[in-house]
């Protein structure tokens, strides 16, 4: 194994994972105010109406596909009797639909960002930088899925998937990745880089998916006493029975 392979398939994943987790904690602690979708819907509605749901639902489907493809070992699916052909057809079929939806959505959104004046003005350098990694990752991912439909395709379930899981066992098997097709390698590297910049971009809004909405009461009551003003409660002024800070 070359040093480059160690770097790409052992060092980069851990560095990227560390930045991803640590970065989110840091960002949440120090920039709650900046933690937002930064929606541009106010400026423009018609293109967004198509582009945004296409992109978001597409990428959510792709996320589920990744969890299934990378997270579930081949032995498990074999055990429940899903044949290779069945699995492959499903993965390529659903993956391609999700991928094309995502790409179409992304194309509409990027077109919108470039052509609609106010949206373009509201686009930061940070956004543009992030879009490069996001686009490359989506494009390579979709290419891999489409190429996977060809008869002589190279699978990922015996190379990429075990490598991906091995990272989380803290027993990284870089040699597995060395055998993977080039497309998967590019996709993996761009994704790892995307994860490394993730906490510092607007993508943090993924982690505020409002699932708590289903269980909370409609009207939220809050006492003004919990935290007042911009400053913490001065020492010695804590209420009786209140939290110790």
């Amino acid at each position, binding site marked *: 194994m070359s040093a480059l392979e160690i770097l790409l398939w052992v060092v980069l994943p851990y560095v990227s994972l560390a930045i991803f987790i640590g970065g989110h904690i840091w960002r949440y602690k120090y920039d709650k105010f900046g933690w937002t979708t930064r929606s541009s*819907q106010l400026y423009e509605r018609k293109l967004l109406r198509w582009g945004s749901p296409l992109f978001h639902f597409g990428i959510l489907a792709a996320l589920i596909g990744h969890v299934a493809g990378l997270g579930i070992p081949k032995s498990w699916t074999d055990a429940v009797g899903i044949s290779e052909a069945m699995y492959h057809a499903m993965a390529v079929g659903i993956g391609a639909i999700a991928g094309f939806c995502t790409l179409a959505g992304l194309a509409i959104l990027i077109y919108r960002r470039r052509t609609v004046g106010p949206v373009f003005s*509201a686009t930061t350098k940070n956004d543009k930088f992030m879009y490069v990694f996001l686009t490359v990752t989506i494009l390579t991912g979709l290419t891999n899925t489409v190429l996977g439909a060809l008869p002589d395709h190279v699978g990922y379930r015996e190379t990429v998937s075990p490598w991906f899981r091995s990272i989380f066992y803290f027993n990284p098997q870089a040699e597995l990745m060395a055998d993977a097709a080039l497309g998967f390698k590019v996709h993996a590297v761009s994704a790892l880089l995307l994860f490394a910049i993730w906490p510092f971009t607007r993508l943090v809004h993924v982690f505020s998916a409002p699932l708590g*909405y289903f269980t909370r009461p409609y009207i*939220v009551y809050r*006492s003004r006493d919990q935290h007042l003003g911009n400053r913490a409660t001065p020492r010695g002024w804590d209420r009786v029975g209140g939290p110790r800070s």
Partner: protein
Amino acid sequence: MRVMAQMGMVMNLDKCIGCHTCSVTCKQAWTNRSGVEYVWFNNVETRPGQGYPRTYEDQEKWKGGWQVGRNGKLQLRTGSRLKRLLQIFSSPKMPSIQEYYEPWTYDYETLTNAPLQEHTPVAQPRSLLTNEPMNIEWSANWDDNLGGAPELTQQDPVLQKISAEIKEKFEQTYMFYLPRICEHCINPSCAASCPSGAIYKREEDGIVLVDQDRCRGWRQCVTGCPYKKVYFNHRTGKAEKCTFCFPRVEVGIPTVCSETCVGRLRYIGIVLYDADRVLEAASTPDDQDLYMAQRSIILDPHDPQVIRAAEQAGISRDWIESAQRSPIYSLITRFEVALPLHPEYRTMPMVWYIPPLSPVVDALTDTGHDGEDAGNIFGAIESLRIPVEYLAELFAAGDTNLVTGVLKKLGAMRAYMRDLNLGRPADESIATAVGMTGQDIQDMHRLLAIAKYDERYVIPQIHAEQGPRQEEFDSGCSLDYDDGPGMGGWGPFGEASGGTTPIAVENFHMLAARQTADTMAAPGDKAQRVNLLNWDGKGAPEGLFPDRAEDDGVGSDSPAVTEPKP
């Protein structure tokens, strides 16, 4: 019974002259920032008119507020929670900037930088969103004073609900002003729409606020609010709304819009309500019963049972006393002249309005009748220039009897008080005709016509023992007791030592001093000064100029001997 206190406001529309002072001062205080250029927490609409944002009252289109579902249960008009979350990526019912207006500035620099040319240079409007030159086609009050009527006004959703016959009365134009702030609803649909739970209602005073640290910019609140009083800050990506000036209200000072209202038409106070019965009241099947349903959850602060329950709920004695003296409680429950704006939205709004009566007296006088005679007024109310049907759509879900009843009370007050002012015996039959007593009418007249600052604004303060927790007192100086060194005097280490006195506290003391002083201003040497208003411009009377030093003497060019030039 779970007693909660709710801060509320009543506006007397008869007094609104549409000067927009409230809007401008509010904007200066809260929304003169980048990202909220288009936002007016307080705006004044001319009615009939499309409002701001355009046609916001058309809930068929914008889906704001609540409705009673087929199963009789209260639900948001936008549908179920799941449906809203599925639409989160494009939020289809949210108004775009064009419905508000595209904010702009002018290219003022051209005026000073333009090269010499034949024509005067012009400062072109430039969009604040793109910085490009733009055409100004709409603004927050584009149809102010019926500008663009009747074409623009015909799109008023309220006007479209009433009969064609009344629409035709446009020939005899009618209008009035409707100042609007956030309603700080008892059953806020913006809070219910927020996926993040960032919008909350304060337990102490019911003020509805957005937690800026928890808002994630899902924009559902903008759709959820039927009054469209939650705005999206397009720079920060967060929702913002009227705060009822809570840093001021907490120290007992009225909101900026109320403080600066030249017509003094706003009243602020608290009411106590039964939080356990809110859902039941908001689920009342018939829209026209919602007014009474909301009235029914407002509790009588004089009732010993209510007082006991309030104390058990942790509401302090001075808050209960404030509720007893509350001007809005009197206007809503005792005199029954204030009505909620669009009760049919089922959010239980807490900014109420006394509908305008104005043109009736003049209109009657013009026809040769005695405009303030009780009989004439009562007869004329239903043929007012501001059609009762229109007011009813705004304030009573279309129930014209309710509005007529209020207008009759206002008319009766004029007739009754006229007799008193002219030294004639009071005619109790006028009061009885509208279900009041003479004393009621006199009290109402006092509140509507005379009430001073401390009667219009009965705002209980946050407690002294919570001092350092208060928004504006958070410096928490231990020397800030009455006449202590912290109260504007010297700190322990000389002048200006220690923390600064919060501006609101300074203003509060200044205002109190001005209201209790005998004169407008009383400098020490006032008696020796010349009142320039009385000076005829000839000569220089003693005291016009300050004394000169002795050795200077009075020369030939002394002002005392100079004749003014013709």
